[in-house]
């Protein structure tokens, strides 16, 4: 059976299950269910693809068009109607789906093949598990001595800009954006004659890992691209934190932050191109964060 056929069988079963025709099948039963003659109507539309700004579900509205025009000005989930005092099924399911994607991006690792395809060596902070990463921010900021040594050994002395990726609070952000943003930044800087290291990946990494990595290196600028805490609007949002000569214990205000990098925000390639300009400005002005006039 092809993957497609399997999917169709499962969907058909779920449909009958929802209609109360069947008891819940055990996983084995589902997997071994014989292929039935096709009576399906194809795949159910992906609710994640619905543009919520254009969706209006109030029944018998006094002036749907006028409200829809107002609704265009906000990403808030309004104009959603109601079932009694509760949510309509469609918006409830969309909310649950968005939450599922958000949680998956927090609680899962970046798939190893994604990192392999990007040729990113992997280093890990002192956190041993994702749970520890989430509950011990102090451990997610530092490396043990050996790891730090290996990271810094991989950065040539003439490198001016250190660029790396960390999972932060969203693995999905890395998966969605790293492949497009990394080469734009590297090519852009190298095109301007600025040497960049071979980027790497930090697992269980928080922003302040850049402090330990950059402290004492000859490189001038450190830039980490990491996954933001996901909201329901997107789980794929990445932030760039960039600092001129970061040091352990420095003020947060010395970081220049660029957030909201994702398909629906600033696209990865444009953010990358913007970061190229920002880093050049930092190298010229020799400062970052609130001290950098932008």
């Amino acid at each position, binding site marked *: 059976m092809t993957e497609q056929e399997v999917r169709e069988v499962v969907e058909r079963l779920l449909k009958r299950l929802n209609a109360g025709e069947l008891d819940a099948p055990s996983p084995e039963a589902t997997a071994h269910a014989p292929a039935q003659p096709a009576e399906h109507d194809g795949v159910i539309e992906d609710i994640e693809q619905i543009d919520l700004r254009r969706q209006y579900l109030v029944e018998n509205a006094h*002036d*749907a*068009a*006028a*409200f*829809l*025009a*107002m609704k*265009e000005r906000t990403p808030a989930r309004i104009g959603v109607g109601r079932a009694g005092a509760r949510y309509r099924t469609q918006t409830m399911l969309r909310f649950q789906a968005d939450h599922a994607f958000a949680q998956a991006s927090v609680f899962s690792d970046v798939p190893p093949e994604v990192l392999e395809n990007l040729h990113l060596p992997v280093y890990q902070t002192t956190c041993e598990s994702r749970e520890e990463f989430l509950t011990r921010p102090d451990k997610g900021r530092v490396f043990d001595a050996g790891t730090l040594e290996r990271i810094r050994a991989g950065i040539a002395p003439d490198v001016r800009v250190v660029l790396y990726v960390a999972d932060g609070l969203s693995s999905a952000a890395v998966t969605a954006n790293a*492949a*497009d*943003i990394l*080469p*734009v930044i590297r*090519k*852009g800087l190298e*095109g301007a004659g600025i040497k960049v290291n071979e980027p790497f990946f930090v697992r269980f990494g928080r922003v302040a890992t850049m402090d330990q990595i950059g402290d004492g290196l000859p490189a001038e600028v450190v830039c980490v691209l990491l996954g933001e805490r996901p909201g329901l609007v997107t789980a794929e949002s990445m*932030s760039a934190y960039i600092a001129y000569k970061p040091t352990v214990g420095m003020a947060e205000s010395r970081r220049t*932050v*660029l*957030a*909201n990098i*994702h*398909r629906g*925000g*600033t*696209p*990865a*390639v*444009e*953010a*990358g*191109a*913007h970061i*190229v*300009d920002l880093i050049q400005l930092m190298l010229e002005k020799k400062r970052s964060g609130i001290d950098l006039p932008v």
Partner: protein
Amino acid sequence: MREERLLSVGIDIGTSTTQCVFSAITLSNTASSFSVPRIQITEKRVLYRAPLRLTPLTSPDTIDAQGVEQIVSEDYAAAGIRPEQIRLGAVIITGETARKQNARAVSQALSRLAGDFVVATAGPALESILAGRGSGAAELSRTSGKRVMNLDIGGGTANMAVFERGEPIANGCLDIGGRLLRFEDDDRTVLSFSPAMRRIARDAGVPLAEGTRLSGEETDRLAVRMAEVLEEAAGLKPRTPLHDALCVEACLPDIGPSDIYTFSGGVSECIYGTDTDTARFHDLGAALGRAVASSRFFAAGRVRRPAECSYATVIGAGAYSVAVSGSTICYQELTFPLPSLPTGKVPFAGPEDLPGLEAAVREQYRIFDGECAICMDGVQAPSYALVEQAAQALARAMAPHWPKVVILREDMAKALGQALMRAWPGDTPFLCMDGISLTYGDTVDIGAPLSGGRVIPVIVKTLAFSAGR
């Protein structure tokens, strides 16, 4: 920088009157903190509207260029604004006037007064849209969620634009206006009339000749027929051959009725009954206004009075003609402004368009004799590989040409621009910007960068819109 205020001027030289309006346009960064800046026009405010003046003519076919310059100079003085304070300017020569022989000479005479940015001579399509925006019809369509049609009826033409969600979806122009027929001071004896008027009169069965006197009933019959043609254009009545004969350049596409109709332009004051001194023009304006007021437009109960009537076009010209590019763009070594650049649109909306891209760009340069902006839709959140390959194709095709200008709709210009920069010799002048949506055949005026060089102001001079855009 979070906010920047720019002064703009709109100058409208119409068939019967000349108007001048000064506005303040506010540019703000609307992005949240810690994001890539997004500079947008956030406020447009009229600072001063000069009084209406009769357009000075040296003969029926020639505008008095010096006279116009004199009027506008006086308006600047009255507004307390010096020409060098103007960062954005637009001269619009409307309707019949644009067809007068020295229109271009006039606009050139005024360029000193309109700042160093843009002097535009509008065609009927742009005028229609500017009137619709300036009247407030476009905004009404956005806030109401309804389809709104604005009819700007002046002396020589009726400019019509239909808006949905704040954007124009169709426009058209008819040879219908208050001044197609002029009377002697008695308001009865025909002084002169246009060829279009002759058609209308023939259709309405009213004999027309200079020096003859028209009865009140005949005058009304002419006006009613003109109002009917407007109804036909607006989808309230089946179209007749006269409608088609009166279309200027292109007819308004037949897209059916609109939810709301608004009227602007000089005749609108007569429609809404707000002009109490209608006799001074000695033309058909007052009769046309009354005819529209008792037409199907009002019977359908869909007419609203827009925020601006008489000044709609000039406010549109001054405050609504300029768009700004996206805020992540790329340019170097260019001298601005770049006036009146035709745009050659090439298909590029995804990887499937890559193979034909280079040839398509070369073809546009061939069509426009080697000088045009290359415009494309572009791709939302493109991959790095796509940007790189597109840059290679564009770099080859654009290499021999000047100026090198790429305009995209989707947000990708900075990445593409940086890739182009690497593909060409280091100091090659070029501009690559996004956030501007163009249709084939649009002409653009590109101004000097604003807001610390982050954005580029652009006036899109639309030639035609197709329905449903």
